[in-house]
């Protein structure tokens, strides 16, 4: 196996912009959120938490310019003025692996879809780093749930995009693998603008430069610790933060 770095040279990539989504969204006339104003900082990790069905995935899909089944009335903008869609890498809530492709085929799907040269060495390295080196030629049907999620993770990490949208990318993983994958993602997506939807407060505390909670009542921010991510779980500030976040998620005053 070639020992190439998993992250491509950062210089090849345009500087990641800051993003902002503001406006109202409705499903068949019924409002999902209104007066929302979500900033996503350039080159940093923004975490979005909130109860199930509140609209987190919808927000990611709006950024990616995908069909949401409803109507959005507002603005999605990038700090550099260019379009957001077209330079995002998106990992959806389900793994969305192509059943006819093996792990390698799924991880390298992006390049083939764009007609680019397939960097198999880098793909192999990423597959190894998500712990699937022994499964490169397995079809998705022969993988466990967590393994499938890791293939999807490797696939999104293969994409060299300035903006990365992750919808609960570690939800199907055990605690230990999850921590490893968080480290890998944080490492690989250095300097990218990342919007992470997660249900795990510990995850948000560990990774988020900024942390937002979307509730039926609106968006609110929970101030992140001064420590730089990835934050050690045992640190005082992290622990404190986690308690505060839990409270906020329960609707109690922070």
């Amino acid at each position, binding site marked *: 196996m070639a020992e190439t770095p998993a992250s491509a040279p950062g210089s090849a990539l345009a500087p990641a912009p800051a993003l902002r989504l503001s406006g109202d969204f409705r499903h068949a006339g019924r409002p999902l959120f209104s007066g929302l104003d979500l900033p996503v900082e350039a080159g940093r990790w923004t975490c979005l938490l909130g109860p199930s069905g509140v609209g987190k995935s919808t927000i990611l*899909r709006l950024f*990616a*310019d*995908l*069909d949401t089944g409803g109507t959005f009335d507002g603005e999605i903008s990038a700090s550099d003025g260019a379009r957001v*869609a*077209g330079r*995002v*890498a*998106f990992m*959806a809530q*389900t793994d*969305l692996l*192509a*059943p*006819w*492709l093996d792990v390698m085929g799924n991880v390298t*799907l*992006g390049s*083939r*879809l*764009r*007609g680019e040269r397939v960097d198999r060495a880098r793909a192999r390295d990423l597959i190894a780093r998500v712990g699937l080196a022994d499964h490169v030629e397995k*079809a998705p*049907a022969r993988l466990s749930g967590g393994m499938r999620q890791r293939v999807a993770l490797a696939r999104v990490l293969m*994409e060299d995009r300035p903006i990365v949208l992750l919808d609960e990318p570690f939800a199907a993983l055990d605690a230990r693998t999850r921590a490893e994958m968080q480290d890998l993602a944080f490492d690989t997506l250095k300097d990218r603008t990342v919007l992470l939807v997660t249900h795990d407060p510990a995850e948000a505390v560990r990774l988020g430069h900024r942390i937002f909670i979307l509730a039926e009542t609106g968006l609110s921010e929970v101030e992140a610790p001064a420590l730089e991510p990835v934050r050690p779980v045992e640190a005082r500030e992290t622990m404190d933060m986690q308690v505060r976040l839990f409270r906020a998620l329960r609707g109690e005053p922070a």
Partner: protein
Amino acid sequence: MSAGGAFPVEVTRLQRLRDAGLAAVVALLLWQAVVWVTGVPPFILPGPWRVAESLLANAGLIAENAWVTIAEVMIGLLLGAALGAATALHLMMSPLARRLVLPIMVFSQAVPVFALAPILTLWFGYGMASKIAMALLIIYFPVVSTFYDGLRRTDPGLLDLARTMGAPPSRTLLFLRLPAALPAFGSGLRLAAVYAPIGAVIGEWVGASKGLGYLMLLANGRAKTDLMFASLFVLALFAVVLYAAVSAFTRRMTRWASETTDGT
């Protein structure tokens, strides 16, 4: 879906052969039963025994004509499948084609090929070309229709993914829709395998001096119902073999798409 491996496959193949043999026996018994029960006269439907006799007596004649038809069918099937697949892909690519070509195709398909026979012979003559054209014509629409249906039913999640990956529609078609639609294409191909022989025979009826269709009409005109059914039998047998081959091929092509049955 069991563990797989070399041995079980062998057994399955043997089992399939046995099943096919069994099916043949049952079919022959059924045929004989129909002849007995309905008392249909032999000049309308001869029993399997008479047909077998005629088959043996005319083995050389039938074989000679069968080869011609088989060649026509194979070429027609290949061309029809290729052309049908290309059309379906084109329909997916171009909204204009979708809006104009699809209704025209349905319109043209609904014209019985017989009616077009003089036109075809005018353009393709009385040789093999017009028979191949006929076989092609008869399988074209099932292939297009089923494949196109399959292409439209790709998992929307995968399409979203392709969109965010910046894939142009042509590559989405090639790398996502196409493989996802292969099982549907397989359905179409299996239909085509059954109908291509009919197409070739109809082509021969329009004008030919060789082939199973020619032999059938000839036998029919000569009141040799036995010979006609012997030719028919060979034609149907060929279709079954072709169907089995195409089935095996399409199953191999779409191994990832799980097929399941109950009550085994």
